[in-house]
Every structure is written in C-alpha cells, then in structure tokens.
C-alpha cells in the first residue's frame, strides 16, 4: 500500500428504482486535506456522502476508513469510525443551551446524573483549540446562524470525529461568516482532520479546497488539484457546457415610478429600537434595484413591510400612484406586487400541498380557475402543466408531486413561475438564488432581467455581493435600518460596497 487514505470509496454504485444515483464512483480523501465535492443539485454528491455516513447502503462497492474495509450500516457506525457530518439544515434543539445541544446523544453521566461540568470544560477546550469562539451557555435560538453552525462543528469534534463532512455549509451564511468558516475549516485541516466540503459554489472551492472531485449525473467526471484548475474549467466539467458568469442585460429603458416609499419606519415587537429607520426610496419601470447589506440590518423587515406581512410604524407606501400603506396583503398583491419570499419553506410554499395547489396559491380565487367559489381542478392542472413546461420545473409526478418532495432548485422555480405569471408591475425577489446551483442561478437571473426588460420594476434583496453587482442597475445599501448609500454598481467596486455595508462609509445625501 503506497498511500493510506483517510477514506477510500471504491466503485460505489447506489441505485434507486429506475435510476443510478451513484454510478461506479470512486473517491479518495487524503489525511488532512480539504476535498471538495462539486456538482449540480442532484448530481449524486449528497447520495454519495449519505452512503459514507451510513444512511444508504450501496448496491456494490467498498469503503475503507484509514485503510480498513468497513461496513457502515447507520450514522452510529459512522460516528464510531470518526466520521462526522455538519448538515445543511442544522439539527439543533433551539431552546437548549449550546452545551446541552452538543452532548445530546452522547451524554456523560456521573452517578446517574448528567455531568454538564466536565462536558462544558471539554467543549471550551475544543472551542479554544479550533478558534470557534462559541459561548457554551448561550441558548441556541439566541445565537446567529453562523454560530449555530459552529455548534454543529463542535458536535462532531466532541464525538472525536477526524473525518468531517460539510454539506453545503455556506448556503446559509453571510459573506463575513463564510470568511470565518473558511478560516475554521483550514484550521481543522491543519490539525490533521480530513474534510469533505460539498458545494456548488466555485469561488469557495477555489479558496478553501486542496482537491476537488466533480460529479455529474451520478458519475465522477474528474478529480483535480484546485491550484491547477480554473473556475471556468470546473463549471464546464460540472454542468457539461460553458456557463456564462456575467449576466446579459439589454439597454436600460427607464419608465415611470412604480413603487415609492417615503419615511418608512418599522419597529420590532420586542424592543423599542427601529429596525427600519426612516427610509425612502423608489423603484421605476425597467430597473432592478437591489437592497444590499449584511444580514440583519433591516432588509428583510423592509420587504415584509412593503408586502404587508409585518405592520409598519409610520411612513407611506405608494404603488403606481395608489396609496397602499394601509392595504392588506391580498389588496397589495392584486394592486401589482409579486413576491418571491426569502424563506421558501415558511412563506413560499405549502409543503404538504401538491405542486398544482402551490402554483395556484396566488390566483385560486381568480376567474381563470374559480367559478361560483368552486375551484376548477382540471383548469388548475392544465395551468400547472403549462408552467411546469415553461419554467422547466422537474418533478416526479407532474402537477401532483408534493412540494415537499421536490428539490430546492425546483421549489424555487415553482415559486418564480407562480410570481412572474401574476404579471405584476413590481416583482420583489428576496434572496432568489439562495441555495441554488450555477445552472439554476443563471436561470433565475435571466428571469429577473427579462422582467426588467419587459418594463417591470424589480426590487431585489440579496446577501450575495456578486449577485448584487452583476444583476442590479442600482444598489441601496442598508446599515442599521438606514439606507446609507444609493449607488450605481458599474461605478463602484466590491471593496467600496463592503465599506458601506460595514457602516464605515456613509453617503451624505441620497435620493
């Protein structure tokens, strides 16, 4: 044996009825390396890692951990072998403290009583050693998403894992948190941990990984040294064709003002602080205006205020010259607001409804599908089939597929289809590409630009700086509830934008 790998997966085949999810994939993870696993949604990354973590049994193939052939039948086996997984959706008990969350499932006892003291001490040691800076006594629901992720990392470290799988760890983080996470992951690798980093974001992979294995449609395409490849090469291998990273936009045709917001103030229910502090702005036909900023500076609340989901304190909202400040959500929607919401599971979809039922969520009461208070399900079905076709929504059972069983990208496509088909004058898109892969992002951006070119007003909110710079015509930067800059992305740099976002720089005057 020339080289001993931390993990060696040999010729793994995993089939589901009718399809081969992992088609003869081999993967070697060296000790102490950061190995990225790149592929589109549904390329087989997660299936492969689920096999390693024992959640699926492969039809054929062998797995070796530290050179020894192993048979992993469940996450418990995997944990015992030192394999830990940081899931994309955290598995934490929100009302428990950090310590209690970490020890959950491997509690240490002292005379039959939970021994929190020793556990806490060990957690502190681990946290210091890897620079995680986690407060062990904080309640999980009080800490930021980035911190919650560190708790997940600590959970694996506490169980003495030396092979860590990160499943799309940056999907939920802000740019700053991503930087910090990358530092942490590099630190872990330096301490000798072997790391699998699942992602479809090429930038991060270039920054963090040593090697990358690219999967496409269940097959391994290549394993490359990251230092010797380019973003373009990786994306081409991943998608199977060339992908454009720049957004093609036509000449801007500015029209009249659609949305006009004046002196909007919003207050949180729990404190007297203004989350949105006296902001004014407007959006005109034919432009994409983007609200940028570090998460939690009032951007989400601004959107909720505009769409009527949250009450506002004061100010006026005018849509097409009509005052909608006091209107309810339905009236606002009908007056011309479409809304692609930030949280597609909480607001965007009724997960236990079928795709068809979700696609008519905004127009089930309109004459197109309704008559005498009855829903014409045949018409709804035809309408859904049209949207599925037009927006290329991939499903198992067509219009009858339950929304819950669809992949994130297809759920988002369904929401976008529904909202764009409303043909509203104002399209509000909040984090429209969150958690999507390159191909899907390209699709979403095209749709937004198409709306702009069709003379609609588009208001976007995004935390991804690249997206902000590429897609928008005008950027409003929010900091602590105020709009601190109104800038043209073509005349500014990402660095400058960062300064505005951090509140270091402020524009004296904005429109």
């Amino acid at each position, binding site marked *: 044996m020339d080289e001993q790998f931390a993990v060696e997966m040999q010729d793994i085949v995993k089939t*589901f*009825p*009718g*399809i*081969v*999810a992992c088609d003869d994939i081999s993967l070697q993870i060296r000790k102490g390396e950061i190995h990225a696993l790149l592929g*589109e949604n*549904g*390329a*087989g990354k997660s*299936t492969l890692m689920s096999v390693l973590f024992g959640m699926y049994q492969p039809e054929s193939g062998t797995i070796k951990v530290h050179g020894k052939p192993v048979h992993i039948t469940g996450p418990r086996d995997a944990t015992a072998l030192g394999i830990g997984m940081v899931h994309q959706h955290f598995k934490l008990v929100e009302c428990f403290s950090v310590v209690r969350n970490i020890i959950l499932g491997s509690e240490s006892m002292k005379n039959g009583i939970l021994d929190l003291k020793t556990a806490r001490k060990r957690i502190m040691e681990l946290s210091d050693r890897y620079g995680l800076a986690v407060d062990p006594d904080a309640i999980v629901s009080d800490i930021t998403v980035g911190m919650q992720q560190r708790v997940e990392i600590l959970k694996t470290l506490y169980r003495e894992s030396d092979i860590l799988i990160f499943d799309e760890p940056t999907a939920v983080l802000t740019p700053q948190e991503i930087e910090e996470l990358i530092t942490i992951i590099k630190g872990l690798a330096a301490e000798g941990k072997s790391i699998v980093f699942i992602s479809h974001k090429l930038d991060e992979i270039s920054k963090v990984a040593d090697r990358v294995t690219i999967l496409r*449609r269940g097959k391994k395409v290549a394993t490359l040294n990251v230092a010797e490849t380019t973003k373009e090469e990786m994306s081409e291998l991943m*998608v*199977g*064709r060339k992908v454009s990273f720049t957004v093609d936009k036509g000449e801007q045709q500015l029209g009249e003002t659609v949305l006009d917001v004046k002196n909007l103030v919003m207050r949180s229910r729990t404190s007297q602080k203004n989350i949105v502090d006296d902001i004014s702005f407007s959006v005109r036909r034919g432009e994409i205006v983007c609200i940028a900023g570090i998460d939690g500076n009032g951007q989400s609340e601004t959107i909720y205020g505009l*769409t*009527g*989901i949250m009450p506002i304190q004061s100010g006026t909202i005018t849509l097409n010259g009509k005052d909608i400040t006091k209107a*309810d*959500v*339905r*009236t*606002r*929607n*009908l007056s011309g607001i479409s*809304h692609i*919401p930030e949280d597609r599971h*909480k*607001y*965007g*979809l*009724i*997960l*236990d*409804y*079928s795709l068809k*039922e979700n696609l008519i*969520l*905004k127009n*089930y*009461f309109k004459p197109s599908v309704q008559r005498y*208070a*009855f*829903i014409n*399900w045949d018409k709804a079905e035809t309408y859904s089939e049209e949207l599925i076709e037009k927006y290329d929504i*991939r*499903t*198992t*059972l067509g219009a*009858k597929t*339950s929304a819950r*069983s*669809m*992949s994130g*990208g297809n759920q988002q496509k369904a929401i976008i289809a529904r909202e764009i088909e409303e043909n509203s004058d104002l399209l509000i898109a909040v984090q429209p590409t969150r958690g999507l*892969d390159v*191909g*899907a992002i*390209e*699709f979403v951006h095209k749709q937004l630009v198409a709306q702009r070119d069709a003379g609609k007003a588009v208001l976007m909110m995004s935390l991804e700086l690249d997206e902000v710079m590429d897609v928008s015509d005008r950027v409003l930067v929010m900091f602590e509830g105020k709009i601190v800059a109104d800038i043209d992305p073509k005349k500014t740099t990402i660095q400058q934008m960062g300064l505005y976002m951090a509140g270091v720089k402020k524009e004296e005057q904005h429109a």
Partner: protein
Amino acid sequence: MLKRKRSLNTDSLAALSASVLAAIVGLLLALVILLICDAKNAWPGFLTLITGGIREGGIKAIGDILYQAMPIMMCGAGLAFAFKANVFNIGGGGQFLMGSFVAIYTAIKWEFLPGVLRWIVPLIVAALSGALWALIPGLLKAYRNVNVIISTIMMNYLARYLVNSLIKASIYNVTTGQSKSIPAAAKMPTLGLDKLFPGSSANIGIFITIAVCIIIHIILNKTTFGYELKACGLNAAACKYAGIREKRTIVVSIMISGALVALGGALLYLSGSGRNIRVYDTQPTEGFTGISIAILANNSPLGVILSSLFISFLTIGGQYIQSYGFVKEIVNIVTSSVIYLSAFTLLLRVFFDSAARKRQAKLSHTESEKGVTT
C-alpha cells in the same frame, strides 16, 4: 379523473390501512378483556360484538346502528372540519349540549310553527347556537392567540352548567329530573325507516347526516374556502403571505365545526326516542366520541361516515353481549377500549406515512438525479 384517483391512493391508502389496523388491534384487546372476565362466554360474546348484535337483534339492530351512528357521525364531521384547519376543537361536548338544549327548547316552545318547520327550524336554530358557542374560542384564538384546546374545554363546563340552569328555568320535568320530552309534532319523520327496521328509532336524521358529510367533503376539496382552510391548517405563514385572511378562516372553521356538532345534538333529541337531557354534572360523551371518529377517519368527512358506523356497530354489539352475562361496565370497557385504541391510528399513521414518504423521496430523488441539466 383516473389520474386524480391514483394520487389519492398513495395518501389515503396509508391512512386507511392505519385505521383498519387500529380497529383490529382494538378488537383483539376487547377479546382479551372478555377472556379475562369470563373465558367460557368470551368467544360467543366476541362474535356478538363483531357482528354488531345482528345475530341476536336481527333487523332492529341494523336500525339501531343507524340511529346510534347519526349524532356521533355529525360530531365527527364537525370536528374533522376544524382539525383540517389545525384548530383542535375539544369543545364538542359543550357545543353538543347547546345544540341539544336549543333544539328541545324551540321544539317545545315554538308551537306557532307550521308543519315540517316544527322540526326543521329547531335544527337550524340549534346549529346557529353551536356556531355562536364556538365563536368565542374562535375569536380568542384568532385575535388573542388563546390555546383552543384549553378554551374549548372551559367552554364545555360553561355549557354544562348553563344548560342545567336553563333547563331548570324553562323546560324541566321535575319528576324525571330531566328536560321535558318534545311534542310529537316536532319529531323528525322516519321516512319509513321505522317500518324497515321495526322497533328502532332510525329516522331521516341519518340521511341528513350523510348528506352533510358529503357536502363537507365537497367544501373541503372543491371550493376556494376549503382550499384556504386546509392551507391555513398546513402553513399559516404561507397563507398570510398569499393574502389569505387566516384569522377569519380560523374563526369560520370553528364556527362551522360548532354548528355541525350542535346539529348532532339536535338530531339525537328531535328523534323523539324518549331520550331527554339529564340534569347532572358530566359532559355528553358524543363530543369526545366524535374526536375518536374524526381521528379514526383521518379527518376525512367521507371516512367519518365509515368510522362512525363502525363505532355504532360496536356499541350496539356491546349491548347484546350483556345476554352472555357480561355486566354493563365490562361492555363499556370493551367498546371504549376499541374506541380509544383508535387513537393509535395517529401513531400508526406516522409509521405508514414515513414509509410512504420514504418511497416518494426515493422516487423524487431518482428523478432529480435523472434531470440534472438546467
């Protein structure tokens, strides 16, 4: 149509198998209880139980099953309706009592009504009273976020003592300690069911109830209101986002629920079978049986028709077991253990659901693996 049926199958098959399994487990427990009490007579007793007493009672037993099913079917339909909207209405007892009292009161006092209106109007007024009674916890939930389970249980006690004093003040029969009997003119027509099933109290009410179940089924599955109601039950935040007035939906759903449960009470007492409201301190059992029926039916109004007939079948069968020397209390234990085991339906559903979901997840997984290019 054919296509729709197929999608229905995966979901409702899991639900149906859970319900049937729960019923079987319940019956086996009943057999065990009978064996413990009196091993010699256990087997014939059990046979009587599972034949609904038809072996002994013959045609009358069938009529009795229909009659017994009527009020609990109506309650089950009403409660299932609220459960669909994720409003856990435990106030069936109180709503049932209000409906019963109002129906008897109007049947006795409103002598000015002509002909069939003597029983139709009391039914309608009773339903309204149930809706109003349920309005209170509905408003508390929608505008003050008061837990419906707690508020409806408290409303049950209010209803019990309010009805007791109202009976004593208006339609009290001092000798029996019950409400007065309704006049013959206010009795619901039997539509010949008394001839078909001699000796039973079966009447038009069973048809009304089945019709209501079908209407509720149509409302839930075919109308915009049903769409809104189920949507609110599944995801209130998404409803708010979509502009559905979720507060109004909550209030309306519990009002309809209360109206139906009250109608169940009215149907029972307007049958004129000699039953009257007793003035004492316990809740009418129909409100709670209705919960079991709704759960056993997985909140499907059409399922409620089947599950209430099943429970009624057991109840009647249970009455005939007494002829094998089992005391009434044992009979009650046997039938209620079947009913309460129906609560296991929930547990079993979780099991069947996760199995079904796993299957679907596998399917969709494969599909998304199939279609990778975007």
